[in-house]
């Protein structure tokens, strides 16, 4: 009897402790979930994030100082100007540009690619659209640095890779082109309902326009290989020409930033440090009576278009009357300005170059060239009369003497203010021809006065991913800003 009582007591004690422990566990579980976020979400919300990051990247504050000045569109004031002197002491900036590229577009599009290829949420159409965005994201990274992590890049979450291997630029380009081909194939016959209706920031889920975007980007990538891999370049161009391309500004891929304080060009024009337009750009536009002058450049206080010379020494800069020079044009730098990643104008001009290079067909080239200029003028809303005036000028017709340069200069103008693409374009073609800085009033920087050819890998990469980085450097050449990347043969 006593034993039974004891046993009952023991059972009660054990049960009480059991209840206590299990209720503790239950309570801890209730506290486990993060109340500030969700654990599942439709991939459309991540797709919009990736796309928006891509467009925001065209005004990216960190890289604008570099590529924007390298492309000779403008010069920034104060300490922002330093990269214009072709120096290389910008380790922190190189790091943030590398990180931003991977953390904005790539981080989110990789998640979309994962979700749209996972059983249960698989969706080939969305996957094909996401691939196009991924291609644009990775192309920018490899164009800026050369070899970068690609197959293992951006896979920190999806594959738990925190020290990704670097891929050669050649292999990256080959794969980017192939991805675009498969996206085009899928999207040509896809049911739009399976795309991103209501969640497409660019084309409102118009798949025809997506096909044109993919194909035009493919043309851009193909032409970038012109001097590095002419075979692949030419065969890809042939494929591009067999599919629809961007033809009118209706097809342009653009976004207007309506969130926050608007696009970064607006805040840059109205804020500090200000940017002033480059003499090199103003001279080109002024000397050719280009109607885009008043679009790209604002008049200074005295109603003139006055530029700032790129590359000034500190003393010369101090004497430049910088504060009173021409700002960026309102069409580029207003809250309602469009941010472009790919345009019909660029596409036509690339086709003009391809017609010369691969078809040896100056007539077709001239026709595409004129289409490109006209598309660019239309893109910026130039008035019809001004368009016909300019189209009638010799500038708008290939002369037969320096066609490559004419096309190259117009491409540079058509890309304004997309400095990143413009910098790549100048590196590849050598057009427009930038003067080498020999004047004592100009800084020669770390490159003897020649436009830098890439960004350096940051020291943080050396600290966090050393083995893979060393492999890339031994393949590509010294980690310096004048080491040309693979496709840069000029």
């Amino acid at each position: 009897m006593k034993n039974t009582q004891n046993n009952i007591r023991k059972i009660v004690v054990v049960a009480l402790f059991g209840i206590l422990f299990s209720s503790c566990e239950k309570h801890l579980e209730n506290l486990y979930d993060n109340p500030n976020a969700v654990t599942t979400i439709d991939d459309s919300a991540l797709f919009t994030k990736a796309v928006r990051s891509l467009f925001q990247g065209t005004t990216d504050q960190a890289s604008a100082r570099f590529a924007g000045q390298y492309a000779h569109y403008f010069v920034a004031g104060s300490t922002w100007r330093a990269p214009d002197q072709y120096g290389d002491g910008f380790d922190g900036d190189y790091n943030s540009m590398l990180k931003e590229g991977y953390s904005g577009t790539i981080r989110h599009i990789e998640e979309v690619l994962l979700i749209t290829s996972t059983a249960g949420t698989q969706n080939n159409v969305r996957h094909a659209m996401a691939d196009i965005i991924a291609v644009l994201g990775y192309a920018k990274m490899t164009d800026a640095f050369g070899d970068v992590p690609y197959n293992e890049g951006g896979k920190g979450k999806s594959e738990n890779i925190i020290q990704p291997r670097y891929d050669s630029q050649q292999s990256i380009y080959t794969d980017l082109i192939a991805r675009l081909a498969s996206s085009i194939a899928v999207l040509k016959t896809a049911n739009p309902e399976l795309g991103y209706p209501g969640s497409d920031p660019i084309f409102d889920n118009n798949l025809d326009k997506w096909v044109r975007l993919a194909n035009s980007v493919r043309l851009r990538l193909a032409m970038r290989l012109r001097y590095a891999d002419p075979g692949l370049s030419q065969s890809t161009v042939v494929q591009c020409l067999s599919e629809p391309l961007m033809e009118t500004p209706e097809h342009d891929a653009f976004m207007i930033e309506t969130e926050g304080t608007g696009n970064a060009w607006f805040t840059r024009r109205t804020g500090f440090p200000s940017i002033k337009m480059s003499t090199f750009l103003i001279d080109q536009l002024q000397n050719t009576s280009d109607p885009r002058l008043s679009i790209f450049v604002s008049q200074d206080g005295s109603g003139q278009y006055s530029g700032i010379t790129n590359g000034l020494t500190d003393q010369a800069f101090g004497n430049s009357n910088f504060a009173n020079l021409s700002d960026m044009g309102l069409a580029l730098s207003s809250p309602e300005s469009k941010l472009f990643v790919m345009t019909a104008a660029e596409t036509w001009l690339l086709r003009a170059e391809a017609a010369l290079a691969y078809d040896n067909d100056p007539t077709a080239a001239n026709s595409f060239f004129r289409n490109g200029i006209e598309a660019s003028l239309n893109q910026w809303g130039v008035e019809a009369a001004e368009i016909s005036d300019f189209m009638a000028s010799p500038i708008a017709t290939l002369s037969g003497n320096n066609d490559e340069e004419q096309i190259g200069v117009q491409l540079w103008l058509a890309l304004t203010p997309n400095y990143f693409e413009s910098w790549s374009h100048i590196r590849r073609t050598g057009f427009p021809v930038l003067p080498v800085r020999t004047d004592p009033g100009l800084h020669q920087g770390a490159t003897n006065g020649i436009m830098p050819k890439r960004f350096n890998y940051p020291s943080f990469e050396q600290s966090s991913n050393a083995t893979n980085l060393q492999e890339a450097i031994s393949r590509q050449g010294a980690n310096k800003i004048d080491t040309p990347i693979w496709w840069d043969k000029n």
Partner: protein
Amino acid sequence: MKNLLTVIGLMVFSIMGTAQTSVSGTVLEKNTDIPLLGVSVLVKGTTIGTTTDFDGKYSIDNVSDGAVLEFSFLGFKTVEITMTGQTTIDLALEEDGEQLDEVVVTALNIQRDKESLGYSISQVTADQVNVARENNVMNSLSGKVSGLQITQSNTGVDGSSRVLLRGITTISGNNRPLVVVDGIPINNGSGGAGGGGGIDRGDALSDINPDDVASISVLKGAGAAAAYGSLGMNGVILITTKSGTKKKGVGIGLNSSFLFTDIALTPDFQNEYGSGAFGDFAPINADGRPVLDYPFSWSWGPKMEGQAYTNWLGRQDVYAPNPNRNPYNEFYQTGFTMSNTLSFEGRNDKGSFRLAITDEDGQGIVSNNTLSKQTFNMRGSSNLTDKLKIDGKMTYITSKVKNRPELAEGSGNTALQLSLMPRDIRLQDVANNTINVNGEEIKWNLDNTFNNPYWALENAGNVDEKDRFQGFISTNWDLNERFNITAKSGIDYIVYDFTSFGARGANAISNGLGSYNHQTGKSSIWNSDILGTYTTNISDFNVTLSLGANYRNEFSSALNVSGNDAKVDGFYQISNYKNSFSNENTTKKGIYSFYGLGQFNYGGYLYFDVTLRNDNSSALPKTNNSYWYHSENMSLLFSKLLGLNSRILSQGKLRGSFAKVGNDTSPYRTQAVYNVDQTVTLPYTVASISGSLPSFDLRPETSESWEIGTELGFLDNRILLDATYYQTNTTDQIMAVPISGTSGFDSKVVNAGEIQNKGIEAQLNLIPFDSESFTWNLGFNFTKSNSKVVSLNEGLQNIVLGTLWTASVEARPGQEFGTIYGNDFLRDNFGRKIIGNDGLAQRGERVALGNINPDWYGGFTNQIRFKNFTLSSLITAQVGGEYYSYGRGYRLFFGTDQRSLVGRETGIIEDGINEFTGFENDVPANAMLKQFTDIFANEVATDLILDATNVKLREVALTFDFPETMLRNTFIQSATLSAVGRNLLFLYNASGDIDPEATYSSGPASTAFEHSSLPSTRSYGLNLKINF
């Protein structure tokens, strides 16, 4: 009848013979006459005995003549009285001056005899924190306790302080000790700004009212702290607040302080060259003002010799040295701190109470930086029955700080602006020209990282309000003489409301649009404990066993709204802003713990303690959320064991301790989530993924530590030495390690890395002289602590703990934690600088340039009492350790620093060899180009690494105790008046014109950087204490 008488006679005789009597009396504390509660009264050699009650009263029956009564009480000298028929024995126990039985408060508020402890503990008394009073009580501990390193940041009134106990043990944790007030752990967060600017909102420790503090125990090692679980990993500071005592008089006390605060140290400025560059004035713009961009807004112009020129406002002026050599002295003012505490207390056999109210007001050296804080404190206890006692406290603190100064690179940092202002500009002109006709700020340069300091004073500011409630209720139930249960529940609850604003018209503030920010939030830490304790004797062992459980709940939530583009000037509410943004955040965490404590005492000379604890945390993955730790502490009083009690070695103790402590992490680091982005205009949803990758298999981190120490007393304890050696290895640290950006992410939460922390600390107290009218006490303490990074995450070469400009403070395997890295000059194999044909040095490798950890630090206290006067002083010293001063770098290349005078006219010939010829460089470089190139263009940090060695007269107090004769005919029971000073002066400062403690934040690695700090201050004034 005769027989009967004989029997009675025999009985009486026998009674007389053994003389059984009852004894009663009162036991008081000597000198104060306060009744002592709980004094043990024992008939020696028997188990017969009792303890005194609340009035110090006791009575014992049947004590025979010749028996010896032993009166003993922890911390007092034991008194033995032989019975010779007395029926009343009143006596006054004297405090044990030899401190053989020093009573200290230990973990879980258990009072212990210090000699029984196997680990190092230091106790600080109320007088050490409430005479030379500091707003943040932690600052008063600086230099007084070995192993404790306090760095008071220079961030305005109510700034935060860096608090480290025995150095750094974790890479990413805050490394701050747990702070426990009356048994309830409170919020111990740190504060501060970043290198890019911001303000220091203070830390949670500055709300502890020094006037309510009764004593502070510093439990240094994990062994001491294991009872608090993971929270105690960095040591514990136990604060006991005052409870009601029985006092003579009516029990009213007043403690008043008034201290002035003024500038103690400023940078040295040159006063020979004014604005311009390359020795020339700036070109004049179309608007008639000089070019205000770099480099012309620096002080590299012509020599100021009274020539005519166009000044920064575009006016004709005389170019002459500044009448006011130092703009700091003109801009900053003398501030003050005033505090008044009124307390009421009392005690009787039913219980005790104490009520206190404190009002504190202050004004900083920046004229609009003010503090107003009120503390209401109620403490009461009651004996419901003989065996059941309740105790409780409620503290309400309300504070309002206005205009916490902006720091470091922040545009509103007045020190940065003043230190870079071209030397020809008169501050009066700046004050009189703040806004132009368009309502825009007027400045001497275009850079939006700067404001006009006077514009900022009037047009930008902040208000930081905080209400805080701390309280507990506890009950103590003595079931019988051996078994006791206490239960306690206490909370620290904070509500805050912070607004900051900047007017329209300054480029630095939202590009001239004006901005507004309003944050509100609350946080709480709620702890509930139950502890049962059983005491028994097993043969010669005295054993105390305790079992306990604890539940800790942490909660915080915040709501933040911000806006820019003001519609109407001077109106600061969110509705007035065209663009507005908001976000909110909530975190919750729960920890259940179960623990057991055992104390074993053999023979009064061998003590052994064990602790075992299990924590269960919601911040860890469900499968891994339970973890154990334990500690073992031993104390051997070898002098007692060996019967040594000579005058020469009057005390000898050896102690040792081992502890293994686990730790969890902040919540939500083990779950992958998507954040929903705040968008206003978009027709579609945008979501994003955090840059920090979670870990799904996180384990608790582990810290293993051991220490050995000794306490030796010589010459009747006139010489006391306490020394400890300790070592801690923290492994499996939970941290977000930075990862390659090409992974798509910034960091990943992992278990990685190991830090080994070891050190020596020693304390020596001397009493060279001790008499009725004259005493002299000396105290030295010494700490040497090193933290070495043993390993990091595999493949990771370094973790950057902080950066300023291009210097960084890092953790690298094999290196001391907190090593400062920066670019060095380019050098040849012999370490000589390689100089170009232009005479300029070049940028070299990124190398280790210094380390934040001192070689050693310590304090020296000296107290002399002569009759009613006491003079006490504290000198603190830090030897070794470096920091990077970007402030000096700025002043050098802006040409305002005294050191920038070198080579102005002749150029500077750099030490080094020509890059092409290999010969000694002989090409002079333009001084401005040299400073600019080295510091800014080449980002060379070498010359900006400064030695933090310093010796400071930290505290002086001269106290006068009003003698009783003076107070006899008043209703004042006691009164003291003190003249006090804090941080008075540097006796030695290796870095000259910069205070090595002048950091802008209080994180573990914060001492690495100085950036244009506010001038260091000293404070001095009077303190008056009166008891009625």
